């Protein structure tokens, strides 16, 4: 099992959800986050006070997937989230040692 974490542009969330669904991913957790990468923030000016806002609003999605689905899921995210401009985001993949479905107690791939 792998945990796929992707940070994407907020307006791409719906496209990514749809693409992951078509790739066979069963569930998704979404969080609104802020961060920075190569994309610069912006400056805000309130009368005389100027503030640089370094953290850009992003959407973080997390999906736990069986090993067999990892490549398709990554491709689905990349295809759906890309705009070609800076700030499209990143995909991180990490090992997942266990998963449990709370209602039934099923574990491993069965729980995904």
């Amino acid at each position, binding site marked *: 099992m792998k945990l796929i974490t992707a940070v994407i542009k907020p307006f791409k969330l719906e496209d990514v959800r749809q693409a992951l669904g078509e790739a066979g991913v069963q569930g998704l957790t979404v969080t609104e986050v802020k961060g920075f990468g190569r994309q610069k923030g912006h400056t*805000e*000016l*309130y*009368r*005389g*006070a100027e*503030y640089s*806002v370094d953290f850009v609003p992003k959407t973080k999605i997390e999906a736990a997937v069986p090993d067999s689905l990892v490549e398709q899921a990554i491709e689905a995210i990349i295809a759906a989230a890309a705009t070609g401009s800076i700030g499209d985001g990143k995909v991180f993949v990490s090992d997942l040692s266990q998963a449990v479905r709370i209602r039934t107690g099923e574990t491993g791939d069965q729980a995904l």
Partner: protein
Amino acid sequence: MKLVQKVVAASATRSAALVTALLALLSPALALAQDAPTFDKGDMAWMLTSTALVLLMSVPALALFYGGLVRSKNMLSVLMQVFVTFSLITVLWCIYGYSLAFTENNAFIGSFDARLFLKGVFDGSAFAPAATFSKGVYIPEIVFVAFQATFAAITCCLILGSIVERVKFSAVLLFMVIWFTFSYAPVAHMVWFWMGPDAYTATADGDALLASAGLIWQWGALDFAGGTVVHINAGVAGLVGAYVLGKRVGYGKEPMTPHNLTMTMVGASLLWFGWFGFNAGSALEANPFAALAFLNTFLATACAVLSWTFAEWLFKGKPSMLGAASGAVAGLVAITPAAGNVGIPGAFAIGLIAGVVCLWGCTGLKKLLKADDALDVFGVHAVGGILGALLTGVFNAPSLGGPGLVTDWVTVAMGYPGIGAQLLIQAKAVLLVTVWSAVVALVAFYIVKLVVGLRVTEDNEREGLDITAHGERAYTD
């Protein structure tokens, strides 16, 4: 020679708010003539409406304008400070403030007890008359008391913008009592108290009547609706407060962005609306001068919105909503002393200049002053007030489309002393009010510091005044 000049200067002025010629205080002959003045229903209706409009300028307009500019953790504290200050000053006004400001005593201050608890304004059957700017025209004094109460109260509320987000609530209340008593009331008296047009029956009376008026009125300064009394007075006190209190924790390092500019826009718009009562109401009658003040207030404000917006666009890169809203307030402030004292060209010029100058007041000048005047009370109200007060003297000139001023209240003859002469009088008024307010504010803030302390603790400031001072939150997640 000097004496003659004084008379002319003093009887000059159709402007400024007025005063109340009390039957009891005037000569028996005048009392007879006024035996039963009938009040005009149109005047009363307009003045009562104006009074309610000015109330709207404080609650909710100013409260929302200021509230939107602070961080969300301090929203209720700002609303609360404005709301309670407004109420406190209204009560003090009806106890002794009105008497101090608008009864005869000396050139600096009225009598403490002539109208203590508003005695004599309404005795159960008779309504005392208050003079207007027209001979033989009176409004019930009780209307004038209410109208002016809203001025006193909003002036005190304006100061809050300089000290929000760190000031103790108890410090606000104590400061307001002291400053209102020793700065607002005397300045209102100095600028606006005179004996009324009907007092002037013979040229020979001029000197004595003039001596009974407030000092700045005696000089012949024009202040239609409160450029000196309201805006310079409050703006200077605010700046002094910002210095004495010190900067907010994290100022210059942490972002202190406005939490809701939508509310700020709504507040500014309601200020614009209410300001028609403030300025056009200051004519004290429903007459053509009220209409002139109304249009000037309308036009100058629109001009200032445009000039601030375009200047900001040009020099700072983007035209902002906060800039447009600030421009509106700057225009309103600057046209206040001029409203019924200048013609249409004056409104164009004052509005356009005010937008640019006040933008500088909130940016370039603010950097020079190095004070954390949190919501730019000085940059908008003092700078706009000074600008307006000076330009009133200029654009009052008939050669610049202005109406001129009354040079003889016996015949109600109009004239104009010349741009240089009037500008000098206006500058003297600006200077006196600036110094007066600064000194009173400085002493008042130090007294408050000794008695209850000025600032909340650093921990409480970080957590926000809503929870730590008032035990509630503006927004729940």
